[in-house]
């Protein structure tokens, strides 16, 4: 723990939301900055750059997506969106505009912390670090391209490995259908989500204990897939 504490910038116009976010992040060793509107948020993120930004879409002066676009014009800092149960289209648009992930209100602090940690891990990953991604019982060696489940090596086809590789690079974060299709397929197959669905089904049969109720490679309905960084206990759902 000799690494300096991570700085998180909370952008939300609701004081009550900021209050519990601050408590939650501080309990987990973060330094917290707050902004209640887009103008403040942009000022703070320019003059004292945070390590991660939590951005609510409903701001009094500017829509969240514009704040995101402005931040992305000069910075790759991880951004997690707080959204209400909105259409999948909006989530996809936000991810394409450069958001790292989202959580849907109402959410638990554990969920937001997990997303934040995943985003930070991906952002601060350096080449010297261990190239092995661990997700529960699964480990993926991104250099040797070997996959093992409970220390037993798993044989994957090339496309199955490619899919797992991309998800492992974003472990804990959502990856959109578009992203996956464009990375794995070429030509007009890139537009056919049916290939992706079937590929996921086959990969699940190799890495999940119960492929009908996956706990590692989970579906984000209408958006994409996520490789969970650790197995959640069943009761933690909801």
């Amino acid at each position, binding site marked *: 723990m000799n690494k300096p504490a991570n700085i998180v910038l909370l952008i939300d116009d*609701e004081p009550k*939301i900021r209050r519990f*976010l601050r408590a939650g992040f501080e309990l987990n060793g973060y330094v917290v900055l707050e902004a209640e509107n887009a103008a403040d948020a942009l000022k703070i993120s320019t003059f004292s750059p945070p390590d991660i930004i939590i951005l609510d879409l409903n701001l009094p002066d500017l829509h969240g997506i514009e704040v995101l676009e402005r931040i992305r014009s000069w910075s790759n800092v991880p951004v997690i969106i707080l959204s209400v*149960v909105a259409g999948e289209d909006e989530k996809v648009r936000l991810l394409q505009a450069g958001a790292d992930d989202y959580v849907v209100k109402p959410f638990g*602090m554990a969920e937001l912390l997990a997303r934040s940690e995943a985003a930070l891990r991906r952002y601060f990953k350096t080449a010297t670090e261990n190239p092995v991604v661990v997700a529960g019982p699964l480990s993926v060696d991104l250099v040797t391209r070997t996959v093992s489940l409970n220390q037993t090596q798993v044989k994957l086809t090339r496309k*199955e490995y490619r899919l797992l590789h991309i998800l492992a690079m974003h472990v804990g974060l959502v990856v959109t259908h578009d992203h996956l299709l464009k990375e794995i397929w070429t030509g007009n197959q890139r537009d056919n989500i049916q*290939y992706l*669905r079937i590929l996921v089904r086959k990969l699940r049969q190799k890495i999940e204990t119960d492929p*009908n109720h996956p706990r590692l490679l989970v579906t984000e309905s209408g958006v994409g897939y996520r490789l969970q960084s650790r197995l959640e206990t069943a009761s933690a759902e909801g």
Partner: protein
Amino acid sequence: MRAEFLPSLMSLVGVALVTALLLMVDRKAAVALVPVTYLIPVTVAATQWGIWPAALASIASMAVADFFFFPPIYSFQIENPEEVIDLLLFLVVSLVSSNLASRLKRETDALRRREREMQKLYELSQRLAACFTIGDLVSAIQDYLAANLGPQAAFFVATPDSHFEPPESKAPKAVLDSVASMAAVAGAPGRTIVDATNQEVWLLRAVSTETTVHGVIAINIGNGTSEAIKSKTAGVEAIVEEVALTLQRIDIGKAMEDARLHLQAQLLRDAFHGTLSHELCSPLAAIQGSASVLATVPSVDKDAQARSLVEAISEEVAQLDGYIQNLLQATRVTAGGLKPRLEWTDPRDIIDAALKRTARRLAAHKVLSVLDEDLPLINVDSGLIEEACAQLLQNAAKYSHSGSTISVKVQADPGWVILSITDQGVGVTADEQQELGRRSFRSERHQANVPGSGLGFWIASTFVKANGGTITVSSRGPGMGTTVSIALPASDSNLSELAVLDNE
């Protein structure tokens, strides 16, 4: 019969009266007064009874004057030729003036009648202006007809099946038959019926707007000259026109009222969707978030009692959030904003997500899921179908006792994927089955003991239908459990064909 001769008799009486008066004065003076005084009964007759009694009075006056006042007296002969000219002159003057006076009378009569008609029409239009419903209008017309035309008029209300109400009126049978045979169709021409028994003419005129016929007016306009019938017809048509204008106003008013209500409902829905949902969701998010942070605070985490209280908060918030989401979904449906975003989806993902979302509600039940090995993909809006399945799973849990089994089955059927959810609960009666698809339907059997809004099944079935699927409910009866099956259109591409591309 006697009444017809009364005017002539009265004019003769008038002449007799004047003669009696003149007989009382000096004869010389009487002769000088003759031409002037006899003009009085003539003019009175002309103004009161018209030209013919006046003419009669003129001739009678001349004869009487000759007889009583011009020498030789008591004879119709006249000595002085000058007096002959006087008498003839009197006759001409009195005839001309009686003609003038009677014409004047006819005209004032006509004017007065027209004024009366106008007054009545004005009263009718005043009355119509106060009408805001078709019912008001019908009673206004009926009152007007009864007051002004008595039993000689009737109004027959149109029935929804394009006929007219069985008339209860003293109108002759021919008229009633004709009304019964008229179809209440917009633009139907009016009819004219002649009553065979007394040759009276009845007018039948439909009262309608451009699209709807509201009734038909039948009026007896008697059997006068064609001139009189024409003017009465014009009068009736004036009423019909006035009524039609009112109907149009009522129609427009109703359309505006409908539009206003629609707009209000729309605004309410928008408000709920936008502001209200935000206002409700954001405190919930704060409560949920705060509870989740509180649960990780070391001092709370160590204290079992505090921890269980925090968990209770989280659970209640989750339930409240579920209700709000239900309402939001329902407004989404009614607002017509349901536009499925179809995408090829693995049915397993949908069932898995629905089970995960309802895990807490299903915790007291045994859940058994059986999925076919090679399920085809389905082209649906996964969010909507997931919501539908979650609603059905919650219903299954709500209407069956804890500890019983809820089984979820997903099967492939050529061209379709069938998702079915079976519980061992209260079942569905035949009557309830009829009502199930209705919004806000709640069976009386459960109203007292199971909480709910009656939205769940309605949301599920609406979402399924919006995705091109069908939903069926079957139950062997009360207490025998329920099976709800959703059939969704499936991919016909061969799965192994898709899969083979990946075997590299």
